[in-house]
């Protein structure tokens, strides 16, 4: 089978439509993950011990099971108890929940890596709890988190094709339907690969820049 450029141009608009959904799912999934991660991290660090332990278990459980199965769970099991979600929303919730657990670990590590001396110094200078967090702890904890979070953002972007399994019409699903109706797999599948490669190469450059920029802040 030969590579056919005409076919490539013909399917391009469909693939771009899919790409839009992919990006939409990534952006909303990431926003949700950032919030859910914060909730998990706070629960795990400040809640009473039984709740903290339970949260730890939930985080471990979500991290130890495949995203695909979680998506099936959200999309197929929840309707049984009356929660019927549109496919894209189910996908975003799945992504947010799964990567929220990763974000939680990043937050936790970031905060725990602030030296004890900083807490003690804040106490010694009679800062209130709020002042300690806003002026002392968070400004030191957040910069090292940024590259790690960006890393997971890229990972999540690459996992969005899984949403095609729950009928979301994202890039992969569009490519599959084009391939199935035309019996040509080479062009759509290769183009999907190229799209992902280009986007993640760009994001790797961005990530290196972030790492350099925030590593510098840390050194001061």
């Amino acid at each position, binding site marked *: 089978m030969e590579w056919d450029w005409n076919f490539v141009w013909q399917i391009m608009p469909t693939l771009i439509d899919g790409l839009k959904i992919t990006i939409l799912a990534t952006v909303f999934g990431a926003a949700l993950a950032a919030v859910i991660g914060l909730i998990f991290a706070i629960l795990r660090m400040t809640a009473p011990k039984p709740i903290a332990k339970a949260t730890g278990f939930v985080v471990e*459980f979500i991290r130890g099971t495949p995203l*695909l*199965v979680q998506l*099936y769970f959200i999309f197929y099991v929840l309707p049984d108890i009356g929660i019927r979600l549109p496919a894209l929303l189910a996908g975003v919730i799945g992504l947010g929940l799964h990567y929220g657990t990763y974000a939680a670990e990043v937050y936790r590590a970031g905060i725990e890596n602030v030296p004890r001396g900083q807490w003690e110094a804040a106490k010694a200078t009679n800062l209130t709890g709020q002042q300690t967090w806003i002026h002392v702890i968070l400004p030191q904890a957040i910069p090292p988190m940024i590259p790690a979070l960006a890393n997971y953002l890229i990972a999540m972007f690459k996992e*969005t094709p899984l949403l095609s399994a729950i009928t979301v019409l994202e890039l992969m699903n569009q490519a*599959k339907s084009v391939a199935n109706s035309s019996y040509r*797999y080479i062009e759509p599948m290769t183009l999907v690969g190229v799209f992902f490669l280009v986007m993640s190469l760009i994001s*790797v450059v961005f990530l290196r820049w972030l790492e350099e920029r925030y590593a510098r802040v840390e050194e001061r």
Partner: protein
Amino acid sequence: MTDWSGYIGLILQGALVTLQLTVMGSALAVVMAFLAGLGRVSRFMAVRALATTYIEFFRGTSIFVQLFWVYFVLPFAGVTLSPLQAGVLALGLNVGAYGAEVVRGAVKAIGREQREACIALNLTRGQAMRHVILPQALPLMLPTFGNNAIELLKGTAVVSLISLTDMTFQAQVVRAQTGNTLIPFAVILVLYFLMALAISHGMRWLERRVTRGLDGVRT
């Protein structure tokens, strides 16, 4: 009342396929990780370039896309693989690329003085790597390898989409036949979690094993 014993058998069969995929995929991943990871610190430009290309390509595209590419596009190039072969190949190559960066990082993390000592003792590069660098680098790699193995386990669920009868696929079959969604998916979630736990415990045991005799050497 549905007869569950048959369906449990089905899911256990799937679990076996998942295990098989994880073990074979991990084996390929370890081989690729060391080949590419050591390739990246090679003396030869061509080897370095080849290893970098492999790593960037497989880390840059989605496992999903790679799997579909291996399964649907390679046949047009005359290479037809069974779903199991395609799954092992895609998972192994994908996770191997992540592992390669771990190998490189760990090898680079071994201090200069160790390399200088090797030169002073007139060891060849191969001897230095085998007897001095790698034994010290291995404990640094293991925790991340453990995480990668769990990622691979989770990745195996994706192969159900190329019609391989793994645990996720069988759960879908059970769902289609019984109309019950909660039980099959809850069961496989628990099974996946148990496998992930087994991997992390196994890695911790291995870690204790390879650090034996290294106390006081590592800082």
